[in-house]
């Protein structure tokens, strides 16, 4: 029984493969999330904000599942560099922000306190540190020797996937953390951070992969071919994905940040300073204006 996607499995087949370890990492957080929400809902009513958060969380977990299960993860672990990159992008640009945005502040705080990680979380989600961690993980986990070694065994492959997801959550925390005290106040600063940390810096290794004249990853070079895509074409596609994909997410998020900041400014001018939302939110449920 293979419980996590791994390289070296012979020719690729379109017959689905079961990965129980992957299912466990999907089911356990979802059940925990639902139970925690149910316990919480016994006291106050459920606000619209909570429902939006739940949708975001489940969408994030669904994306995580798609990226970690057959066929994407199978292809990414052992056959195609472009699928490996697709997995990375799904984790860091889609699943991570959706999951993070789907956690209510009380749930994230409770999780961090239970795990004893609250101060560590606060430290690594400072914009400069978060940017360095995200890009450091990106660099290290795309070094050929690291990919070839980690993808060759199930534990290594799982570690890589979990580290990607965690690095994505850290990267998005300065913009999306539900713990408002951890967020930089300025929308302009958040946008600049996103642009540099997630939008621009990944272009450098992306360019290196795109323009490499030789196959970089032994795993994908020696894998049985899945399609007519040559090893180098596949690698160039992977590099191009790394270079440009983030912009399709980062630019719209930056636009939303500026729009919301403008809306807040307009609201505060219209209503007056006495009705301005406090830094910790002003709605009945305690939810903050998003």
């Amino acid at each position, binding site marked *: 029984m293979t419980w996590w996607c791994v390289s070296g499995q012979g020719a690729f087949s379109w017959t689905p493969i079961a990965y129980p370890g992957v299912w466990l990492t999907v089911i356990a957080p979802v059940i925990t999330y639902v139970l925690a929400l149910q316990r919480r809902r016994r006291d106050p009513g459920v606000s619209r904000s909570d429902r939006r958060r739940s949708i975001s969380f489940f969408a994030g977990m669904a994306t995580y599942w798609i990226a970690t299960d057959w066929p994407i993860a199978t292809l990414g672990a052992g056959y195609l560099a472009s699928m490996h990159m697709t997995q990375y992008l799904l984790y860091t640009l889609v699943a991570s922000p959706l999951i993070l945005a789907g956690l209510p502040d009380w749930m994230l705080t409770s999780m961090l306190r239970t795990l004893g990680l609250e101060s560590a979380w606060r430290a690594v989600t400072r914009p400069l540190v978060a940017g360095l961690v995200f890009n450091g993980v990106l660099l290290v986990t795309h070094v050929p020797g690291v990919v070839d070694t980690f993808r060759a065994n199930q534990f290594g492959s799982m570690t890589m996937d979990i580290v990607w997801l965690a690095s994505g959550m850290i990267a998005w925390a300065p913009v999306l953390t539900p713990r408002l005290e951890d967020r930089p106040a300025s929308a302009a600063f958040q946008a600049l951070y996103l642009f540099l940390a997630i939008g621009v810096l990944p272009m450098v290794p992306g360019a290196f992969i795109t323009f490499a004249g*030789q196959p970089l990853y032994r795993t994908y070079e*020696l894998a049985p071919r899945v399609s*007519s895509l*040559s090893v180098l074409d596949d690698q160039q596609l992977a590099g191009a994905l790394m270079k440009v994909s983030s912009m399709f997410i980062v630019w719209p998020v930056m636009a939303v940040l500026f729009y919301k900041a403008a809306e807040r400014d307009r609201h505060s001018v219209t209503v007056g300073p006495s009705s301005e939302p406090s830094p910790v939110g002003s709605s009945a449920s305690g939810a903050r204006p998003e």
Partner: protein
Amino acid sequence: MIFVTTDPERDTPVALREWLNTFGSDVVGLTGTPQQIGVAQTAAGIASPTGTAPDSDGGYSVVHASQAIMFTPDDLTHIEYPFGTTRADWSADLELLSTRPDWMRA
């Protein structure tokens, strides 16, 4: 680089070309009758391939040699590369092999 099929029935010239293009358009593919291929394998000292029984869809696997045999300018083979040799290894080795005086044409 020259690739010789061990399954001429399935590796038609068109199928062979299409597959080899995934490695590079300059890789030459060779095929022939099973007898011709058998003679070539014996001459090169390669074990004969064995096929598995066809499955319900008629598909089957062929277990065959996968090493690359390097012929040097003296028309002899002094070195074989097992499966797992990467393009970077070839690039580094080919330069060295082409300059060995004892493997040059007499």
